[in-house]
């Protein structure tokens, strides 16, 4: 399994319309294909619950909302960029410009997808990776950068 299996092409949005966190989460969850979510509301509730435990705004203009949820059938990632930035209660106070929404099933058969998310998380700490994602303008560019991990 590699990251392409988790990042569906239609789940990338280079210009999110929402200007707040709740709207952005809803918008991005709608990007995920039907095979991923069995219960979108449940998934969103679990994502919010995770946000309430501590913001997933990691700083540097990045946020990675995520949840392990019964509303998820198979693991997947959605990527959204917000041109104006969205307030995410990040550690460093910066608004989130690049958002990774991560969906993981509550009960999972193997941990392949977790390994990929682990790599993605590590990569997130790499400045050049973050820089190129911020610069990316098209869906394909984003997919190429993320697939390169």
């Amino acid at each position, binding site marked *: 399994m590699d990251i392409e299996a988790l990042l569906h092409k239609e789940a990338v949005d280079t210009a999110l319309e929402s200007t707040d966190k709740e709207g952005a989460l809803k918008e991005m969850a709608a990007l995920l294909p039907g095979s991923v979510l069995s219960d979108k509301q449940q998934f969103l509730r679990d994502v919010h619950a995770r946000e309430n*435990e*501590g*913001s997933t705004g990691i*700083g540097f203009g990045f946020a990675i909302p995520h949840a392990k949820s019964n509303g998820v059938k198979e693991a997947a990632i959605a990527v959204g960029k917000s041109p104006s930035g969205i307030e995410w209660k990040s*550690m460093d106070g910066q608004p989130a410009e690049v958002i990774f929404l991560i969906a*993981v099933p509550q009960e999972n058969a193997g*941990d392949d997808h*977790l390994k990929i998310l*682990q790599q993605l*998380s590590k990569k997130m700490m790499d400045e050049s990776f973050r820089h190129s994602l911020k610069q990316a303008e098209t869906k394909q560019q984003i997919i190429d950068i993320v697939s390169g991990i």
Partner: protein
Amino acid sequence: MKLVGITSCPNGIAHTYMAAEGLNKAAQEKGMDIKVETQGSIGVENELTEEDIEEADGVVIAADKSVEKSRFEGKPVLETDSSEAINNAGALLARFEAGEVETYGAKTGREKANEKIEEEKSKKKKKQNPLYRHLMNGVSYMIPFVVVGGLLIAISLSLGGEPSADGLAIPEGSFWNSINQMGNTAFSLMVPILAGFIAMSIADRPGLAPGMIGGFIANDGSFYGSEAGAGFIGGIIAGFLAGYIAKWIKEVKVPEIIQPIMPILIIPILASLAVGLIFIYVLGAPIAGLMEALTNGLEGMEGGSRILLGLILGAMISFDMGGPFNKVAFLFGAALITQGQPEVMGAIAAAICTPPLGMGLASLIFKRKFKSDEQEAGKAAVAMGLVGITEGAIPLAAADPFRVIPSIMAGGMSAGAIAMMGNVADHVPHGGPIVAVFGAIDNVLMFFVAIIVGTIVTALLANILKKPTMEGS
């Protein structure tokens, strides 16, 4: 400077690994050495070893949930959340350079002793191979059945039995006969439960029915024209067969519409049929023959070979104090109770308690050979020995294994051999003086002789082998 770290977060999907990467990067910039253990949803990775922690100048814990800290005692420990490590790892590490981090508190000897036991146990768990884990899952569910069966039968025989031509017999229709039948019921459930929970450990719930049905068939020789049945060995084999067959069927890809009925219908039926038929037509009779040979062999054992068996079992019980060797010997004894051979468990029950009792005694008498925290552990060991928990000796053995393990093995072997010679029998699968209190021991006097001799041998040998401590106390 060398540091170790732990990162963890609520879901264990992202922050755990970002925090670890943040710490690694910051350490690299500062020219520090760091090893970070990640406790994420994949499980623990890059696990810190005892040496890692020993060599470290400090510990940084970046976690959003509680992390076990006892292993970092005496080290400067800095606790923070994962986002600090993601955004400000450099500043965190600088606090170690400035010497601002406080040392994590010390504990009493007894707390340490208990932690040491837990630690050794969890270490063993991690090292366990899956076959052993499945087997032990089955055994742990089976034990209460053997306890209930063994005690009820022993009590009904001793209180309601009347001497007859073939030994004690309980009159038909009497109250004690009912109790005796209850005990027999518990025994007849033992093998199905063992097989069922082995299978369940392998294949989850769909494995339970095939395992129990397979176990029942294995245990009942009438299915395959044998008088004795394949007993607990048959049960173990049935459990593993059922578990792996169920697991294998589970992995077959089926159309989505059939999926919901797989775990409750398809898997149990197919796996039960497979295991049942294999036992009836192939495995049942040969394994039953093997069991018969084993029980006949044990029955026919005379002086010398009985003592040898006692020595071997005593050595196995004490060698790893609750580890695989101990458990195998224990399972052997427990299974033989139901085959009408409680003498084997008698030897095991005596050897089970001598490691903690003997080391406890040694730490109380020969004080200069034991550090003060070991003496605390010794008191706890005595208490555990009395209730038959061999693990009580672990803190003392872990501190000085090459001197302690030979001592406890010698003690366990003496206890096992004496109990065998003295015809001690134990009707429940548990050891230590506590079982005598419950009336499950035949030949109580020899049982205690075995325990006392084993305890004294252990303590004396430990005193001879161990060197005085450097500690002033």
